[in-house]
């Protein structure tokens, strides 16, 4: 491996960060070339958790393949399922009941908050502060409990089915979400006290892992990482799906392009998600939670592409159908994959500590990259 990098010179220190490393949150393998403490090159080696989901989906029916996408980006499993369900519905051209739409969006936003909570804790842990991780989990667990009650699982819900959602909301759902909102609002100032305002943290983040607007576009970086550089790339605003065009929320943009900007985007995005949840929680319309669909789904011949905004960025589902009951080819454009490609550019010239900070704010989920 080392000889193949080619660009290393005598005296450079080549280090394998991962596949087992505390900062890579999974089995990401980075080969970093160092000059002392300064990073010269970062090269990702992927595939340690490649489960060939795309190939597997080719032999699963349109109802079945959705569950496997929960295992891609397991932190926003709901949103992944949502993307698949939407793509199938696009092919089938079925209308989804309004209640189902509202439930889906509610769940998406709760998932987004939960994902950002975990990111917040994990990123602080990367920087050496262990306490925020546990504090973040307090709020996250509340969301997980809500999910568990309605969907039946905490992480890989498989709640979205083509045509709506699998089951109706649990009777306790509204009151529990309201409790969560109350809890979250009473704790929101702690995020700033513990991490955001901390001088050590700010010094670690500011000016680190800079991405310009051109870089963001060229590397295909999306999600909070892209918006941290001032590139408007929120799919919910640009190409609204479901009922997002009827909701009031802002696309969070920061212009600095460094790790701190990406951090702030995520923190403020949580507030926007809270705003969406607040708008919807008292206005869940009555009606069916699932549209009538056939037992065996057959997509017409053609190509269907659906993108949604996950907690990490733009997730695209590209289905090529031959008219059968299984997809002919399926491709997941995962946000983590493109975001990872910018890592080398971001971290060159920085210190090892900067690599950790950059990786933390890109919020990489490795199964999402490897699929």
């Amino acid at each position, binding site marked *: 491996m080392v000889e193949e990098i080619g660009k290393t010179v005598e005296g450079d220190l080549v280090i394998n960060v991962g596949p087992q490393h*505390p900062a890579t949150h999974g089995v990401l393998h980075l080969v970093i070339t160092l000059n002392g*403490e300064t990073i010269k090159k970062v090269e990702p080696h992927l595939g340690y958790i490649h489960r060939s989901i795309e190939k597997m989906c080719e032999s699963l029916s349109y109802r079945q393949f959705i569950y496997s996408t929960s295992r891609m980006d397991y932190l926003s499993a709901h949103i992944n399922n949502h993307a698949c369900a939407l793509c199938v519905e696009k092919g089938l051209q079925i209308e989804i009941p309004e209640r189902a739409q509202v439930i889906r969006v509610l769940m998406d936003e709760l998932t987004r908050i939960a994902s950002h909570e975990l990111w917040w804790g994990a990123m602080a*842990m990367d920087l*050496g502060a*262990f306490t925020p*991780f546990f504090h973040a989990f307090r709020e996250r667990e509340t969301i997980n409990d809500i999910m568990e009650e309605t969907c039946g699982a905490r992480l890989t819900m498989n709640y979205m089915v083509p045509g709506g959602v699998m089951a109706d909301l649990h009777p306790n759902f509204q009151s529990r979400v309201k409790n969560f909102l109350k809890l979250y609002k009473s704790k929101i100032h702690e995020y700033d006290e513990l*991490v955001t305002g901390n001088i*050590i*943290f700010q010094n670690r983040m500011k000016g680190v892992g800079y991405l310009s607007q051109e870089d963001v576009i060229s590397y295909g970086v999306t999600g909070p990482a892209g918006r941290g550089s001032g590139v408007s790339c929120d799919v919910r605003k640009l190409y609204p799906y479901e009922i997002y065009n009827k909701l009031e929320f802002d696309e969070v943009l920061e212009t600095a392009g460094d790790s701190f900007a990406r951090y702030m985007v995520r923190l403020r995005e949580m507030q926007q998600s809270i705003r969406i949840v607040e708008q919807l929680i008292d206005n869940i319309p009555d009606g069916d939670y699932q549209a009538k669909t056939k037992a065996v789904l057959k997509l017409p011949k053609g190509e269907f592409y659906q993108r949604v905004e996950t907690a990490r960025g733009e997730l695209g589902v590209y289905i090529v159908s031959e008219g059968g009951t299984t997809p002919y080819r399926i491709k997941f454009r995962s946000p983590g994959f493109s975001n990872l490609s910018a890592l080398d550019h971001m971290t060159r010239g920085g210190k*090892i500590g900067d690599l950790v900070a950059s990786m933390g704010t890109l919020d990489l989920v490795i199964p999402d990259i490897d699929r």
Partner: protein
Amino acid sequence: MFSLESITTLVQDWLNKTFSPNLALFFEFVIVGVLAIALFAGLGLVLVIMERKVAAWIQIRLGPNRVGPKGMFQSLADTVKLIMKEGLTPDGADKFLFNLAPFIVMMVAMLVLAPIGFAKGFHIWDINIGVLYVSAISSVSVIGILMAGWASNNKYSLLGAMRSGAQMVSYELSVGLSVLSIIVLTGSLGINDIVLSQQNGWWIFKGHIPAIISFVIFIIAVTAETNRAPFDLAEAESELTAGFHTEYSGMKFALFFLAEYINIFIVCAIGATLFLGGWMPFHIGNWEAFNHIMDYIPSFLWFFGKTFFLIFLIMWVRWTFPRLRVDQLLNLEWKYLLPISMFNLILMTLVAIKGWHF
């Protein structure tokens, strides 16, 4: 009044009466050695459980609570586990240095114990250059860490060791300067003299603002010197997995672990001695009655109370803050701590000359 001084003199008299002077000295060595090792083991157990409980409560967890009453025997169970574990030596490692390094770190920690006054008249060695001795010996521990990092034949370890070297060399200065500012007031390097000079109040109260500044600098610098978060760059978990002790396992790892806690204890003991009066009870100027009541609390309780307060402070800091980056660590020392402590030393000298302190 209960005092440890009487016990030590009793033992010494008895030994000198029964044996020849040489043999008596030898037995004293043995007794001191056994006591020191016992203290180490006891401190290790107590500090580990304390750290875990502090961390847990700060992190809204319960912490260890299964082994023994309220989990108090958890560290004992951990020790048993560590002893049972196989002590691996990596293939490409320099075997001799690799196995030597934990002992060096441990021995340094033991040596520093010598001049510390645990209670009234309860010293191992009341040397007249006590503070100088401590600062000289404690900087040797970096050799152990460098040795461990180099001998492990692991790049993470090497980076950790190099970081640790740079860190220790820099922060030694601030520790030295902040200690000096108290030496300026006392005029003596002997630990006992320093404690006795705080008869009518501790230096942190008597020494005006310069003493408080040097206390803060001392705490920051010793946190860095003992490789504790937020300055734990030598073992920076998320960057270098475990830094210089990545390759160590079993009891050899435990020695590093123990040495870290012993070092914390020692620097906190020094801090308590210099700024908070060591074993000297809390005295206020000439309030004879008040001072007398305070004297009823045994002196070793005062010493351990103050030391553990400082240890708690350092733990509190550790579980609150993120880690610094390596260049910021050096910036903090050379751009902030060093200039401030130098200026502070001048200020302190002025205070001492003019006699502005109480």
